[in-house]
């Protein structure tokens, strides 16, 4: 028997279709309408189709993650929102206005209501923290006095009021990104675009920056669009997510739905980044393809969207009267749902293992037999 033979093929898990997502409504902050983006090729090279048939909406006031591998088209997507790039076809509507149809002065005025933060912060090295934050206000033509008042507020908001006269070279990555956030919010935008804003930061600093963004979303009601290749960022911050691959949005919806029931291989790959889908090395090295006398069958159980406190292991042991051994477990919480996997040891040979796997599958815990251990 194949070691990785699935015992669950006949029992598909109930999935929420991506189409179950609420339809495009008038209250979208950002709306992509059949957008495609191609870049002309160099010399004899063909043109590059970065985005194809993008049709989705970002709800007003939401925190929406756009996750994809590098080269998937995330950067192009976010640059269409603030008009740094123009779509080859289709429209991008931001706050009711077709930003893809604007140019020159009209575009520049519209860009003031869309803030953006960057992976490498992009602060001016020649300006202090306060003067960096002041830059968009100077560009918008604010008076010196108004700028001073606003900059003081912003420094307070992002928690670096004491660093106002420091130059970027004197600040840490986290502090620089706080300045970047303050600068992006200076002109009171409705939308904040984050282009891999935490990718250059260590995990602890990343957490504090994501907390700050969550606060800003809650207190100022700013719609946040997070472009990232890191699952942990989406998991911690976003409520909505779109998975992008090869220029297409392959899956989208509420974070909890998408990641408890991932349909697309790319989504599954991102998920396994967080919860891990491999068996611990110590266990894998002991696995054997055939039953071992007096040993146990190893069954891996997928946990997808189970409520906390689920008694599945206890029920399995009680109802089938078997001595279930817990060999490994990894369970995480995504959008309030439990996601992960358990490896269980089932004594009693092949028959018992089949029975256990069937029981688990019938209770919505997809199970697969990995092999046997002594």
């Amino acid at each position, binding site marked *: 028997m194949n070691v990785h033979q699935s015992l669950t093929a006949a029992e598909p898990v109930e999935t929420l279709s991506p189409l179950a997502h609420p339809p495009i409504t008038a209250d979208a902050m950002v709306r992509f309408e059949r957008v495609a983006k191609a870049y002309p090729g160099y010399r004899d090279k063909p043109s590059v189709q970065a985005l194809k048939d993008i049709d989705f909406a970002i709800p007003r006031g939401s925190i929406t993650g756009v996750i994809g591998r590098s080269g998937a088209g995330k950067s192009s997507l976010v640059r269409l929102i603030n008009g740094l790039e123009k779509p080859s076809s289709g429209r991008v509507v931001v706050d009711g206005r077709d930003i893809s149809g604007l140019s020159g002065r009209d575009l520049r005025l*519209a860009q*003031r209501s869309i803030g*953006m933060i960057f992976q490498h912060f*992009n602060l*001016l090295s020649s*300006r202090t923290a306060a003067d960096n934050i002041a*830059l968009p206000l100077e560009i918008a033509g604010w008076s010196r006095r108004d700028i001073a008042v606003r900059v003081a507020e912003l420094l307070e908001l992002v928690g670096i009021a004491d660093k106002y006269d420091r130059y*970027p070279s004197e600040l840490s990555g986290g502090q620089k990104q706080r300045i970047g956030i303050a600068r992006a919010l200076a*002109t009171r935008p409705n939308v904040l675009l984050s282009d891999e804003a935490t990718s250059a930061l260590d995990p602890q600093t990343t957490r504090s920056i994501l907390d700050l963004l969550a606060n800003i979303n809650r207190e100022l009601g700013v719609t946040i669009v997070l472009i990232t290749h890191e699952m942990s960022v989406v998991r911690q911050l976003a409520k909505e997510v779109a998975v992008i691959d090869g220029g297409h949005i392959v899956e989208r919806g509420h974070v909890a739905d998408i990641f408890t029931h991932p349909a697309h291989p790319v989504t599954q790959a991102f998920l396994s980044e967080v919860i891990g889908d491999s068996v611990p090395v110590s266990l894998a090295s002991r696995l054997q393809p055939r039953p071992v006398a007096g040993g146990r069958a190893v069954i891996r159980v997928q946990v997808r969207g189970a409520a906390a406190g689920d008694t599945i292991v206890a029920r399995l042991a009680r109802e089938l009267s078997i001595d279930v051994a817990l060999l490994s477990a990894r369970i995480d919480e995504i959008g309030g749902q439990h996601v992960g996997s358990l490896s269980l040891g089932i004594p009693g040979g092949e028959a018992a293992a089949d029975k256990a796997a069937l029981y688990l599958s019938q209770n919505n815990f997809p199970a697969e037999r990995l092999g046997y251990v002594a």
Partner: protein
Amino acid sequence: MSRELLNLIVQATGESLFMVSIAALIATAFGLPIGVFLATSRKGELFAAPAVNSVLGIIVNATRSTPFIILVVAIIPFTRLIAGTSIGSGAAIVPLTIAAMPFIARLVEAAIREVDAGLIETASSFGASPLQIVLKVLIPEALPGLVLALTLAVVSLLGYSAMVGAVGGGGLGDLGIRYGYQRFMPEMMLAVVVVLIALVQTVQTAGDYLARRVNRRLRHR
């Protein structure tokens, strides 16, 4: 060395400084915008005008590849038109300016191109106009490089200013040729060379200091 000769040196130094500073000022006034334009007008750039960029690039290269002494002679009619004469320190400012302008433009272009393209994108993202990007982002961020570029230009101008002496332009070069060489006064030649070295050292040191002062990429505290 006699008081008379000393006076000659002081006077010639004054002439040289006069020629160089006026030429540097005018050449910068033209070279800076030309350099910024060269750095921002290729395809897809801020002031994209690839054709104008190419033509301007060719003119700049042509001027730079003409030996200075030939340039001085070649533009004598133009010098007369501007300065009314082709002899003396005032007239020498014309060829000095013309020679320094493309040199400064190329140095400025290089310094501006050093600025991270991400900063241009950032400024565009909050609605800055191309002119605002130049004035508020590119020039301030390139300032240390620009200071060093201008220092280099002034040092080169000091060298050129000595050369115009050979064609009656006045200044230290003129003094060195007429007294040091033609009247065979080695002490005069030596004095001229020493003054020139001192001037170059002073300009370079001041430029380096200033470039360090405006460079915020370095830690100061």
